[in-house]
C-alpha cells in the first residue's frame, strides 16, 4: 500500500505522521513537497498540521491552491483515502473536499492541551478499531479550530453519519458547532480533524489513543 504525507512550507508533525504510518504499514511513506505537480498513485494521503504558507489570507487557503493539491483532489475523487489533521483539516475545507470552515477559536486564544474526544461514528474507514461512543484523549493545538457550517450542512452531516469525533461534554476548546472535532465526507474515506492523533500514538508520548486511527485506515485499505 502506498501512503504519502504532503509537506507544505510551515507544516509540522509531518515526520510524526510518517512514523505512525511506517509503524502501521511497515514501510516509510512518500514525503511529497507542496510544489510538486505530480504524485504517484496513492492509497492514503495525509495532510499534516502546521501553519502552511504562514496562514496567509485564511488558514489553509494558500495550500488548498498549491500545485500538489490538484493531484490530491484528483486522487481523492478516484477513491484514495485522505486524512487532514489540524491545518490539514483547514486545507480540506478550503479545497472543497469537506464542507464547512474552521474559524478562529471563540476564546481568541491558541489552545494547546489534551482534549477528551468521543468517537461519534466508529464505523468509517478510519475509526472502525474504536468502540462507538468510546472516549479517548487526543491533544489539540490550534487557533482556528472552530468548526462552522450553515444549519442545512450541519443537518446533512448528522443525517449521513459524517461526524467522526466530537469534544467530550464541557471540553469544547474552540466553540465548534455541535462540538465537532472531526468530520468525514459521505464515503467515510476523507477525514478532517483538529486534534492530533500522531501526538498520542505511542506510550512514550503519554498514550496510544491515536494509534488505532492509523492502524484502522491501513487495515481498511489492505
Amino acid at each position, binding site marked *: 500500500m502506498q501512503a504519502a504525507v504532503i509537506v507544505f512550507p510551515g507544516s509540522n508533525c509531518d515526520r510524526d505522521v510518517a512514523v505512525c504510518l511506517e509503524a502501521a504499514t511497515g514501510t516509510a511513506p512518500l514525503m511529497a513537497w507542496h510544489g510538486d505537480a505530480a504524485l504517484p498513485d496513492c492509497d492514503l494521503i495525509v495532510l499534516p498540521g502546521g501553519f502552511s504558507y504562514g496562514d496567509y*489570507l485564511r488558514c489553509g487557503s494558500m495550500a488548498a491552491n498549491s500545485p500538489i493539491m490538484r493531484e490530491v483532489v484528483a486522487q481523492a475523487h478516484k477513491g484514495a483515502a485522505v486524512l487532514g489533521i489540524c491545518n490539514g483539516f483547514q486545507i480540506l475545507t478550503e479545497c472543497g473536499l469537506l464542507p464547512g*470552515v474552521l474559524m*478562529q477559536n471563540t*476564546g*481568541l486564544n491558541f489552545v494547546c492541551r489534551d482534549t477528551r474526544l468521543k468517537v461519534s461514528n466508529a464505523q468509517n474507514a478510519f475509526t472502525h478499531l474504536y468502540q462507538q461512543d468510546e472516549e479517548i484523549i487526543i491533544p489539540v493545538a490550534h487557533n482556528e479550530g472552530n468548526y*462552522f457550517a450553515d444549519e442545512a450542512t450541519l443537518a446533512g452531516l448528522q443525517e449521513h453519519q459524517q461526524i467522526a469525533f466530537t469534544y467530550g461534554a464541557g471540553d469544547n476548546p474552540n466553540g465548534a458547532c455541535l462540538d465537532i472535532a472531526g468530520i468525514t465526507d459521505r464515503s467515510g474515506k476523507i477525514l478532517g480533524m483538529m486534534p492530533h492523533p500522531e501526538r498520542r500514538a505511542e506510550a512514550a508520548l503519554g498514550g496510544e489513543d491515536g494509534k488505532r486511527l492509523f492502524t484502522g485506515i491501513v487495515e481498511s485499505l489492505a
Partner: protein
Amino acid sequence: MKAIINITLKSGVLDPQGKAIENALGQLGFTGVNGVRQGKLIEIDLSETDAAKAEASLTDMCEQLLANTVIENYDIQLDKSE
C-alpha cells in the same frame, strides 16, 4: 486599473475579533457602540483597461481564492479614474 475588494463576514457568523474590539472600545469609554464586525480590504492593481472584463476577473478571484463564500461576502469597487 485599481480595484478595492472588501471582504466581510456574513451576518449571523460569529466574529470573535469584532466582539473583542467592541469590548475594548467599551472599556476605553466609547459609549453607544452597538456592534463591531472586522473584515479585510485587498487592493489589486490590474493591467486590464476594460471595466467589465476587470470586474469579471475580480469576481473569479474572489470566488476561487480571496473570499471563503461559506462565511464571507465580498464587494468589488473599481477605480476607473486611472
